[in-house]
């Protein structure tokens, strides 16, 4: 068994060396330009972590109350950007398939219509370093992490929860774009509740 593991390890190291040799064999500016262009495509990433899966249909909800996200990152996010973030989160819940009304929460009055309450947190916000992204050096990327929860207003039952991180390693990456990507991913997550 030990011999097999060692053999497997040697194979992996050999494969790694081969890949590295292939990747660096044409280290001219053409190779760099091609791989850099591809990295510009792959540099913007979003990751969705489903905390509570959305297992029920949301079509019966006529009102969606979107509460501004609680800021857990302090003064790291500039106020205009925080406003932009909450505006984008609100937009993510606007124009959903069953056309529910979207309002900014919290709303104390009960309208009688079935309502979905959305709240959440801003867990991480970092603008990174554009100069370092240009030279592709160091820990430089833009990162925005949001966590949202969907609750039934009447019963208070937690229907779904998810965390989304938008990361951008590109020289052209901005926090605004990262917020756009994160909220688009939240929208896609919520839309699964209308596909049932």
């Amino acid at each position, binding site marked *: 068994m030990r011999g097999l593991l060692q053999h497997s390890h040697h194979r*992996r*190291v050999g*494969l*790694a060396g081969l*890949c*590295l040799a292939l*990747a660096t064999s044409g280290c001219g500016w053409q190779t760099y330009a091609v*791989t850099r262009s*591809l*990295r510009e495509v*792959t*540099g913007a990433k979003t*990751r969705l*972590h*489903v*905390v*509570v899966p959305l297992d029920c249909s949301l079509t019966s909800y006529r009102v969606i109350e979107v509460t501004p996200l609680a800021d*857990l*990152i*302090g003064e*790291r996010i500039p106020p205009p950007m925080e406003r932009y973030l909450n505006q984008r989160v609100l937009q993510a819940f606007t124009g959903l398939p069953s056309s529910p009304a979207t309002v900014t929460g919290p709303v104390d009055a009960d309208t009688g219509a079935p309502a979905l309450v959305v709240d959440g947190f801003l*867990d*991480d*916000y*970092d603008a990174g*370093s554009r100069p*370092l992204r240009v030279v*592709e*050096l*160091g*820990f*430089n990327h833009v*990162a925005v*992490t949001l*966590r949202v929860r969907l609750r039934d207003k009447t019963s208070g039952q937690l229907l779904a929860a998810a*965390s989304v*991180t938008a*990361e951008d*390693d590109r020289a052209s990456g901005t926090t605004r774009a990262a917020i756009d990507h994160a909220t688009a991913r939240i929208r896609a997550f919520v839309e699964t509740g209308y596909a049932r």
Partner: protein
Amino acid sequence: MRVSRSVATALVVAVSTLHVSAQSKPYSPKNGVVNWKAVLFGGAFRVTAAIPMHGDFSRFDRVEIVEAGSLIGGDVPPTVLHRLTAQLLAEFRKSGRFAEVEAVRSYERRRTPTASVVEEADAFRTPDSLDAPMRPAADMVEMDRERQAASRDKTVDTLVVTDEVIDYVRGNKFTQLLLLNLGNGLMTIRLSYFDKATGEEFGRSVVSSDTTSKVVPSLLSPRTALVGVAEGVVDQVTRRKVAAER
């Protein structure tokens, strides 16, 4: 004879000087974003301060690290959480700035240090009902540890570090070899630092690290995102403690 005596004196002076210099070894803060180790092997880190660290860190001689939790559900496996806690423990011990470093299962924050709170019994102080089922052995061992820790509280100020994972990517070490910015591993955690006795929060930060490197791919590198994160956390606490001690 005279020569050997002077050599012995010189040796004694040298040894005592060594001891003193080891005690007052200056701490050089780490640059996590760009440093040669991270460029070569990966494991660079960033620290984002949500609540800047404040207060007197020099009085803390004991650190309790609460077992890492997940804010992203099951996307971070329990084994990774245990490894994170172990890595933080190892890094704090390696720094040598704290007399005691321990892991604890949980921390219930004391919001106000009033008499009523002091009277409020912790789980290990409250006797179980005779009708209650016997607790598992692991719980009893944990309570024994908490009892011992509580008895130590009288003499040593304790810094409690809570940590929760807010983003995690395992990564793929083979995909990373394509050099197309794919397959990178990453971990981001949020930490809070509390004075155990009063429950006062002394700071809150987000620390993140990944496995990108420009020279040695993560398949061959000893550095991981866990190592980077632990270095970032310990660096933040140590630089604050060292600054307070000056």
